[in-house]
């Protein structure tokens, strides 16, 4: 899965100039880790989408004893309410993915807007917006999420908003850096001198250039959002009326699945969350690595290290 790093002094071929269009797809196709990650994600998303048709049992119907053992008819056993685990996993993944995607969408809109505005307008706007981002970057987000969720009360909508409004900082930074470089390109300057409005330049010329990186960042943010949902649910802040993967772990923990020996009620949901996060990290990391050479070194960093152009391909950012 590792990308070979050139020996120092090896001949460096310049990468062929490709159009940005289709670069996302191409990266996924060419890197095995990204291909595996997206295949797994596709299967999970399909399973979750098709839960109403594929799920073997009714989500709200007790079909056997509480914490019933795995059997042929229930391969993963039953949960604390005697509901089939496979059915629960499919529906739970559905809710977790909805939270992941929706919260990420919120954070992309906020982070994307702030990043584009800061990078495109520069100057005072940039300084102010990045200052704000810096402060938000330092304040630990999970405790803040807990506080806000506790005050607002548990509901799916609140969870989505809470996660979304606190995850945008890294997006804003990554997008700003990219927009700053795009802004200086000749065709953008040309468009401006031809009298194009800011809106037109941003939507026609800047955004399409930033889009692939935004996609990479989206995939990585989905992983964080799903993790946060699991954490909030575990702390009793999940929507009580909807079963998510996080809620399943919480239920099993609260109703003593461990001391009853019902490991099958607690292992699969966490494992599924881990697999989703892992796949997102693989895909997002590979994309980010392919798209943003600067990130190869400082990929997790909020600070810009003084960098000189990299030799060959660095390690893949994860």
């Amino acid at each position, binding site marked *: 899965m590792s990308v070979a790093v050139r020996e120092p002094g090896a001949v460096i071929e310049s990468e062929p100039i490709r159009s940005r269009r289709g670069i996302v797809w191409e990266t996924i196709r060419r890197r095995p880790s990204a291909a595996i990650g997206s295949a797994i994600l596709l299967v999970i998303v399909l399973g979750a989408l098709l839960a109403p048709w594929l799920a073997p049992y009714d989500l709200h119907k007790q079909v056997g004893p509480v914490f019933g053992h795995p059997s042929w008819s229930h391969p993963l056993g039953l949960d604390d309410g005697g509901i089939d685990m496979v059915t629960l996993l499919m529906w739970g993944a559905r809710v977790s993915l909805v939270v992941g995607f929706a919260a990420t969408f919120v954070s992309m809109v906020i982070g994307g807007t702030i990043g584009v505005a800061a990078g495109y307008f520069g100057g005072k706007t940039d300084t102010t917006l990045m200052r704000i981002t810096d402060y938000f970057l330092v304040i630990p987000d999970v405790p803040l999420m807990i506080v806000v969720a506790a005050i607002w009360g548990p509901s799916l909508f609140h969870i989505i908003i809470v996660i979304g409004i606190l995850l945008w900082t890294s997006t804003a930074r990554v997008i700003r850096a990219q927009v700053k470089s795009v802004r200086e390109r000749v065709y953008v300057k040309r468009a401006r001198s031809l009298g194009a409005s800011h809106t037109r330049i941003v939507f026609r010329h800047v955004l399409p250039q930033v889009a692939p990186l935004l996609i990479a960042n989206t995939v990585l943010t989905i992983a964080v959002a799903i993790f946060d949902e699991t954490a909030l649910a575990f702390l009793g802040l999940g929507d009580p009326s909807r079963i998510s993967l996080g809620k399943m772990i919480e239920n099993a923990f609260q109703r003593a699945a461990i001391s009853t020996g019902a490991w099958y009620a607690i292992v699969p949901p966490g494992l599924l969350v881990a697999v989703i996060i892992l796949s997102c990290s693989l895909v997002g990391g590979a994309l980010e690595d392919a798209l943003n050479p600067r990130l190869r070194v400082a990929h*997790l960093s909020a600070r810009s290290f003084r960098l000189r152009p990299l030799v060959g391909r660095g390690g893949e950012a994860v």
Partner: protein
Amino acid sequence: MRGADYVIKRIAFALLTVFIAVTINFALFRLAPGTAVTNLARVPHATPETRLALKREFGLDKSKLDQYFIYLKQLSRGNLGISFENSQPVRDNLKTALINTIPMVLLGTLFAIVIGTITGVLAAWRRGTAAEGASVTTALAFYSMPTHWLGLMLVILFAGTLPTGGMTNDFLINPSFWQHFKDLVAHITLPALTLGLVLFGEYTLIVRSAMLETLSEDYILTARAKGLRPAAILRMHALRNAMLPIATLIALSLGYIVAGAILVETVFSWPGIGRAVYDAVLARDYPMLQGAFLVLTVSVVFFNLVADLLYFKLDPRITE
């Protein structure tokens, strides 16, 4: 003089961040309509007179701005309010909790840093080998696991061999110092291990990419050309320079450590600040929640500042 400038700037930034956190803290609990303090009475069918009396008692009849100034004034004196749950000053509750949390978090983080650095360096140094594949895959796997779930997995694995809840064995009567210490070590093992395991993956990946970057520098090539032993190159040339980004990135993962501590302490009933957050959420004990949030934020900001200054010490070129 630019150095002193940098230090002052970082300290000012830290102080401002704390101030913003304090303001957010106030705003969240007081400005949200119809929540928290408005329902503070916790008496659902109180008469209007009772409500008014309670409002006056808690200073809620004053304007929001006055309330804010009162809050700041009390805070500057170290008054964090009274817990709804046990009617003790929040400050005292949090002090005990913080003292319990620190050793656990420290042990877990230390474990993560040591294992993360070793595996990360190994992965970069032996790149392209099975050793790299194994350490990166393991790191990614642990990085992806939900913290509390990993804790529960350890509970399943070690139930019976190691204590899985609390900080001390209540049935030890008049233990000697040695017995007490052994008991504490047994209790701290699983929570600290969980925290260490969820953190180390991130560190491995960070250390690996920092090392890979350093190893591609020209001075490493020079060192090789000089015929230095590989161990010397690794220790004197590569690792020292790779420490810079590693130090910063570990500081940046502080927020993650805090989140991890909350989840780990909940799983293992560790009576620390994370557990205090969980209990406060369950009991809707807002003064405790508010105080705990403040303590967590201030400590993250503080350690960030420490990291900034450390970074400056490690690399004096940085002046921003």
